[in-house]
């Protein structure tokens, strides 16, 4: 298999959401001492970009999207130590602390956002569901996060998003971390009302919102 064929196989694995294949290819690239930067830039990333395109075109639905994102994540995880060893700096899109707020253990929407952000080059620290508000802030400080993402599915827990911003203000941390909110009962108006920096209606738009916030 020449280099071009190899890159196409990588792209195909991501496109088809074939995790085993995506991981094996990453492993093979390492073993055979291929140029990892080239593999990522010209194999994995175009693969996930094509997935995004197919989504935009209405061809792919969430199951395809999420599986490809998981593939990407798994392959990157394999290559990460090698990249560090070789001191290849794969540019991180930003560091994100994400979780579902206290009292709410619904985390399907949050998982989607976490996977897709991660597939798009963000360093994602997923705190899970039912996360204490203080934990978000502690973690964000610890990892010098760019962004805190808060999800809430219940109408009763969305107020946790408001409280987090209040706590940030009290601690003088408001503005240091950008705050993005989401979840079924949440909308742009709510985000504006509570002083959140960003709101995303779905997992896909979350990527562009997050990128914009981090660039600011």
């Amino acid at each position, binding site marked *: 298999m020449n280099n071009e064929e190899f890159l196409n196989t990588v792209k195909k694995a991501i496109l088809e959401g074939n995790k085993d294949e995506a991981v094996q290819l990453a492993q093979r690239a390492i073993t055979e001492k291929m140029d990892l930067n080239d593999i990522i830039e010209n194999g994995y990333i175009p693969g996930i970009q094509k997935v995004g395109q197919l989504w935009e075109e209405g061809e792919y*639905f*969430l199951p395809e999207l999420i599986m490809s994102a998981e593939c990407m994540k798994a392959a990157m995880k394999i290559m990460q130590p090698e990249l560090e060893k070789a001191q290849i700096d794969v540019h991180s899109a930003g560091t994100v602390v994400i979780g579902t707020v206290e009292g709410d*253990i*619904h985390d*399907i929407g949050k998982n989607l956002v976490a996977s897709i952000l991660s597939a798009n080059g963000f360093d994602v620290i997923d705190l899970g569901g039912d996360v204490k508000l203080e934990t978000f802030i502690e973690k964000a400080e610890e990892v010098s996060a760019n962004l805190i993402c808060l999800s809430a599915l219940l*109408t*009763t827990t969305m107020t946790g998003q408001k409280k987090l911003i209040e706590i940030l203000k009290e601690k003088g941390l408001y503005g240091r971390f950008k705050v993005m909110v989401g979840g*079924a009962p949440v909308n742009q108006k709510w985000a504006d009302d509570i002083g959140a920096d960003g709101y995303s209606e779905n997992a896909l738009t979350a990527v562009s919102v997050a990128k914009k916030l981090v660039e600011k």
Partner: protein
Amino acid sequence: MIKTLRPKLELLGNELIQKIIDEAYSILENQGVFIENEEALDLFREAGMEVDASSQRVRITAKLIENSLSSTPPSLKMYDRNGEIEYLLGGDEVHFDPGSVAVTILDSETQQERKAVTNDLIRFARLTDCLEHLNFQSTGILSTDVSEIVSDSYRLYIGLLFSKKPIVTGTFRVEGFEPMHRMLVAIRGSEKNLAEKPLAIFDACPSSPLKWSNLTAQSLIDSAQVGIPSELISMGMTGATAPVTIAGTLVQHVAENLSGLVICQLAKKGAPVIFGGRPVSFDMRNGTTPIGAIETMMIDSAYAQIGKHFNLPTHSYMGMSDAKVNDAQGGFETGIGTILAALSGVNVISGAGILDFIRCQSLEKLVIDNEICGMAYRLIEGTAQRDDPIALDLFKDFAAGTQFLSMPHTRKWYRDEHTFPKLVDREPYDIWVSKGRKSITDRAKEEVESLLQKIPPLLPDKDTQKTLREIMLSDAQRNDMPSLPEIDFL
């Protein structure tokens, strides 16, 4: 007379029902459920179940499930605020109530969603009270002019003041149960009376897949102990928090509901339980939870059938829409759901008034949906043999020009055989034009105002009002809210 056939919808064959139940039992026995509540875990330990303390995971034996099913009453009765009108839940009895809980109200003037305040809750409760086909009310809107901490008890407070119908409600915090229970007791006069004549149903939702949070498990226990019926609201999303196939989601639904039922029976043997739910056909494009999807309704109808197979009272969220305004989608999704639910013989059907994935309550839609519910009731009444012979006598003097309009037979039966919706448009075109080309939403808007003007609220007596207010106020004050919003009519 030939007995009237009650039209009935059954989506599952017996073989499939049995297989779904078998797999649900197997999951409970082998994988178990997570229960994040110590009191519930202790109940399981006492019952000899294997409890993994660190992961809060319980495995439930088939025997315990069987015992719990056999101690759960096959039917129960709800009573109105006065304790006079009785509503049977069981068999194929059908009762409609507004869907809950909405975070917004569709503003009557702008027909746009906005946050609700106390006055909206009052209008909602009063309107529900005078709509003929809604047997129950629900605490269906959140009020934003009180602290969100007491939003559970406050909605019950308003509902109990402004409607006499039995009420479907639930807690948002463990501490919410006590004031809410006290309010119900205040209406009935004693805990014993409340247990004998339930006034409220408490909803409790497991978190799919297979988990009961501290709050919901506590609600099951607290309700069971004082005789409040618990409605088990399993809410798997196909392909997201539950298997993607309809049958697969049903397996998980049954497992989740059965685990809830066991908690209730362990807390108090014989506690009333309703086999309900709010599962959805998860939208793989938008990541949303459409209640108007036909597949959602298929899951609803099917689990209700399984609930009946267990000989339990049933509930479902049906007869509502994901539309954002009262448009054609709002009507057809509600219509399809209401009819399917009624044909499925679901005992408590929550949905009226709801738009936008249960986010929004519309009073206009509430009065429209009331008419859909009326049609559904007519449908399940079935086709009766009123006379014997059915029609031969009417044709005795048959001749050219025979008509039926002037026959006594017509006058005798037309009101029983046919219903007369008020808002549905059945006028000739020219008359419709001359009346201003009004849509059903326009007419509904007028109807809302007219009903609220015409029918004064039926409040509980002054003493009860005072007690309710004291309970509410002390709950509010405990939660840093020194006073309550002013309430008209009091």
